[in-house]
C-alpha cells in the first residue's frame, strides 16, 4: 500500500463526497469547498476498513447510463404493476424463480439484486452464494425462463461490463 492509497483510498469517492457536501449545504463558497474536500478525504480514510473489499468500478459512464435506464424501467414497470394491483389482483399468478448468476463480485451482485427488487414485479428474496443463484419472487409470471433471460440481458450483462 503506498502513501496515497493509505491517505486517499478512494479519490473518486472523495470527490463524490465533496460534491455531495456542497449540494447539501447548498453553497459553493470557498470555505465549504475546502470543508467538503476535507470531509471527502477524512471520511473515506476513517471508514476505509468498512468499505467493500474487492469492488472497483471500472467504467463510470456506463454505470451512470445503467442507472438512467433503471430509472425509466422503474417508472415503466411501476405502471404495469399498478394496473395489476388495482384492476385484477385476483388473477395474478405469482411464483419463485431461481436466477443463475454470472456475476461474481458481491458489489455487482448487490446492484443486480437491488435492480431486480426495484423493478416492480420482482423481488430478490435470497442470494445463495454457494450455488451462485438469486431467488426471485415475481408478482406475475407466465414464463420463468423468459424472465431470467430478460434480466440477464437488461441488467446483468451491463453490470458485468462495468465491473469486470
Amino acid at each position, binding site marked *: 500500500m503506498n502513501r496515497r492509497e493509505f491517505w486517499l483510498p478512494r479519490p473518486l469517492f472523495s470527490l463524490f463526497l465533496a460534491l455531495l457536501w456542497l449540494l447539501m*449545504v447548498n453553497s459553493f463558497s470557498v470555505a465549504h469547498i475546502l470543508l467538503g474536500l476535507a470531509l471527502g478525504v477524512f471520511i473515506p480514510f476513517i471508514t476505509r476498513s468498512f468499505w467493500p473489499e474487492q469492488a472497483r468500478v471500472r467504467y463510470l459512464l456506463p454505470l451512470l447510463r445503467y442507472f438512467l435506464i433503471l430509472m425509466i424501467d422503474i417508472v415503466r414497470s411501476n405502471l404495469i404493476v399498478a394496473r395489476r394491483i388495482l384492476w385484477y389482483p385476483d388473477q395474478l399468478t405469482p411464483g419463485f424463480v431461481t436466477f443463475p448468476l454470472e456475476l461474481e463480485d458481491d458489489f455487482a451482485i448487490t446492484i443486480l439484486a*437491488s435492480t431486480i427488487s426495484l423493478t416492480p414485479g420482482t423481488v430478490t428474496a435470497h442470494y445463495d452464494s*454457494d450455488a451462485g443463484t438469486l431467488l426471485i419472487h415475481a408478482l406475475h409470471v407466465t414464463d420463468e425462463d423468459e424472465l431470467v433471460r430478460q434480466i440477464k440481458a437488461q441488467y446483468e450483462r451491463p453490470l458485468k461490463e462495468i465491473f469486470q
Partner: protein
Amino acid sequence: MDIGLLVFLPVVGATASLLSRLKQPGPDHVQNHALVALIAPAICLLLLLSYLPRIQSGEALVYSLSWVPGIGLDLAFRLDGLSWLFATLITGIGCLIIVYARYYFAGKDTAGRFFVLIQLFMTAMLGIVLSENLLFMLVFWELTSLVSFLLIGFTCSSRDARRGARMSLVITGGGGLALLGGILLLGQIVGSYQISDVLAATDTIVSDDRYPLTLSLILLGAFTKSAQAPFHLWLPHAMAAPTPVSAYLHSATMVKAGLFLMARLHPAMGDTELWFSLITITGMITLMVGAFVAMFMHDIKGLLAYSTISHLGLITLLIGMGSEMAMAAALFHLTTHALFKAPLFMMAGIVDQATGSRDMRNINGLWRTMPALMLITVIPAAAMAGLPLMSGYLSKKMLFSESLLVTAPHWANTLIPVWVTIAGLFSVAYSVRIFHNVFFNGKPVDLPHWPPRKKPVGMLVPLFILAAASLLVGLAPQATYNSLIHLAVMATSMTQLPLYDFSALSNARVPAMMSMIAMIGGIVFYLARGPLFAIHRQLPEVDAKNIFEQIMQQCIRFAQSLVYRLENGSLQRYLAFILVAAIAPALWLLGGYSGWQGPSELTEVNPIVVFGAVILCLSAIGVALFHHQRLPALLLLSVTGLFVTLAFAQFSAPDLALTQLSVEVMAVVIMMLALSFLPQTSPRESGAWRVVRDLTLAGLAGMGIALFAYAVLTRPAETISGYFLANSVSGGGGTNVVNVILVDFRGFDTLGEITVLGIAAVAVFAFTRDLHLKERVASAGTAKGFAEPHPVILQMVSRMALPIALLVSAYIFLRGHNMPGGGFIAGLVTAVALTLQYMAGGLLWAQERMLTHFRPLIGAGLLIATITGLGSWLVGYPFLTSAFSHMHWPLIGEFELATALLFDLGVYTTVVGATLLILANLGKLMTVAGPGQEVG
C-alpha cells in the same frame, strides 16, 4: 472544676485499668489490676471527704461550663448535701467492691474488663448525682443503663445473661427516653436545665399545663431505673451479672438513681396530689410485690434482688409522702439499705463461689465451714429484718411513724400503715430465711463443691467494713444523721429543717407496736414456710424474662408480618402506591375545582392533527391491548413514536422531531436485542380485579393529565422565552434558538444530559460484563439457508451507506446552531450508521474495524464539553460562557467560529460512544462467540 474532676477521675482510672490489662493480659495479674483500679475511686473518696466541712456549712458548690448552650446543655456540676451523700456512698462502696472483686475474680481472665467497666460505671453514677444541669445528668443516666447492660451480659456465654441484659437495657433505656422527654418539658417550662433554676421555679412548674405530663415522664424514667413495679422485672434478671456487680449496681447505687432524681426534684415538683398518688401507690405496690416474691425465692441472689425491689419501693413510698420527715426517713433508709444489702450480696457471692450453688434448698448449714462469714452476715441480715439496735430497725420505725402521719388523701391514712406492716412482716421472714437457710437448717444437699472451697480472708474485709458501718449507724443514728444525712434532707426540701429526733422515735409507741407485729409475724411466717411454699408451688410459675422475651418475640413477629405485608416485594403494588399517592391528594385538592377552562379562546380544529391524534391514540391503545404479543406490540410502539415525531414536526419543533425519531429507532433496536432473550409473549396473569384497579388508576392518571393540559392550553402564556428569541443571535451566535438554548443558555442542562447518557452506557457495560447467556449456545447454530448470519446484500449496502451517513451527520452537526440539527442528532446518525455495520457484518467484524473503544469516546466527549466550558475562565467569564465570532479570511470568506460548536462536539462524541457502547454490549450478550470479554 475539681467537682468535675470527681466525675472524670474514674474515666482516667478506667483507661489506666485498660492499659494495665493490655500490658498484663491473662488471669495472673488480677491483684495488680485491682490495685490500679482502686486508685481513682480512692482519690475520689478522699476528695469528697475533704469537701465535707464545706458541705456541712450548708454550701452548695456549683460549677458550670457552657457546652451546647443552644439546647441548654452545660457541663455543670453541683455538690450539695444530697449529692455528697450519694457520691460518698458510690465511691466508698465502690472501693470496697473493687477490693472484693480482687478476690472474686482471682484467676479469671475477665477481671480486667470488670475493672474497666466498674470505673466507667462509677463515672456515670457520679455524673448523675453531681450534675447541675439536668440534660447533662441525662448523659450519665444513659451511660449507667449502658454499662449496666454490659455488666449484666458480662458472662456473655450464658443465654440468661444476654436476655437479662437486653431486658434491662430496653426497660431502663426506654425509661431514659421518657426521662429525656420529661426533662426537656421541664426545661421548656422553666427556661433552663440548671437544677438551681428548676428548684427556684416550683410555682411555675406546678401551675403549668404540662406539669402532669412532665411529671409522668420523669417518674417513668425514675421508676424504670429504680425497678418500681411493674418495671421491676429487669432487676432479678440482672442477677446474671457477677456478684460484685449485683452488689454495687443493682443494690447499692444504680437502682438508687431514680430515687435520687425524685429526691432531687422533690422541691420543685413535689407537694402535689399527683406527685403523692403516683409515687406512693407505685412505692406501695413495689414494696409488697418485692417482699412477697422475695419470700419464695430459692436463689440467694434472687431473694436479695426482690428484697432490694421491696426496699426500693419502701423508699419510693417515703419520698411520695413528701413530708420533710418522710424524706429524712427515705434518705436514712437509703443509706442503711446500701450498707446492709451490699454485704449480703457479697456473702451470696462467696457462698456461690465456695459451694457452686445459690439454691438455698441445697445450701444448708454453712456455719460449720464458714463461721466467720456467718458471724459477719448476722449484722446485715438483722438490719434487713429490722431487728432492734440495727440500722434497719430505725429506718423501718421511721417508716411506720411517717405512715401514721399521712392524713390526706383519706384512703391513705389507714391503708398505708397496715400495708407497710404487712410488708415489714414479709421482710422479717425473708431476712430470717436467708440467714437461717444458708448457715443452718441442717445438712447441705448435692452441692457441686463440698466441702466448700476456701475463700481468702481478705474477701471478708469489705463485708466486715460494711457490716461495721451498718452496725455503727444503728448504734449512733443521731450522729450519723446529723453529720451526713441531714444536709441531704435539707437539699431535698430547699429549706432549713430541724434535725430528725431519733429519741422521739424510740419513744413512739405505735410504730414500735407495728414493728413488733411485723417481727413476730415474720418469724411465725418463716416457721410456717413449709406449707406456705407448698401453696406457692401451686401458683402458676411466671418467669418475667420469658414473658419479656415472648413479648419481644411477638413484637418482632408483628413487625415482621406488618413489614412483610406492606413491603412484600411486589413492584406492581409499589407502583400502584405511587400512583395513588400522586392521584389521591390531587383529586382531593381539585375535586371541586371549576377553573379548568382558561380565558383563552379555543383554536380551530385541524383535521390533519385530528387524524394524527387518532392514530397516536389507537397505536398507544394497541400497544396496551396487544402487549402480550411482544413483537407486534413493539411495532405498534414504533408507530406511536413515529406519530409523536410527526406531532413535533407539525407543531414547529423540527429539532425535537429529529431527536425523537433517532432515539425511537435506537430504543426499538435495543428492545429487540433484549427481546431475543426474553419470552416472546407475556402470560395473562392479572386477575379481573387487578385489571379493573389498574384501568381505574390509568384512567384517573390520564384524565388528570388531560385536564391539566387543557387548563394550561386554554390560558395565555407569559414566559421568559422572549429573552431567548431576542438574544439568540446577538448573544448566542446562532439562529436556531432551541439549539442555542441547549448549548448556551442552558448548556448546563445539556452537560448533565450527556453525562446521564454516558453513565447509562458505562453502567450497561459494567453490569453486563460478566453476564453470560449460556443457554443460547444450544440454540445457536450457523444455520445457512435463508437465515444466514450476514446477508451479503445487506452487508454491501450498509457499508456503502456508512460514509454517506457520516457526511450527513457532519452536515447535521455543523448546521445545528443555525438550523435544526446539532451534535446530539448527528451523534445518533453516526451511531445508527455504525449500528447498521454491527447488524450487517456482525459484532466481531465491526468491532475490529472501529477506530477506538467506546468508553474513552464517552470520556473524551464529556471532557471536551467540560473543558470548553472551563475555557471561559481564561477570559474571566463563568463556566460555559460561550464565545463566537464571525471571521473574515481572505479567499475563504466569512464564517463563524463558536465555542458552542466545540461544546456540541463533546455532545456528539459522547452520544456516539454511549450509544455504541450500549448496543455493542447488548449485542455481545447475544453472541455465542463474542470477542473476548470486553466490548467497548
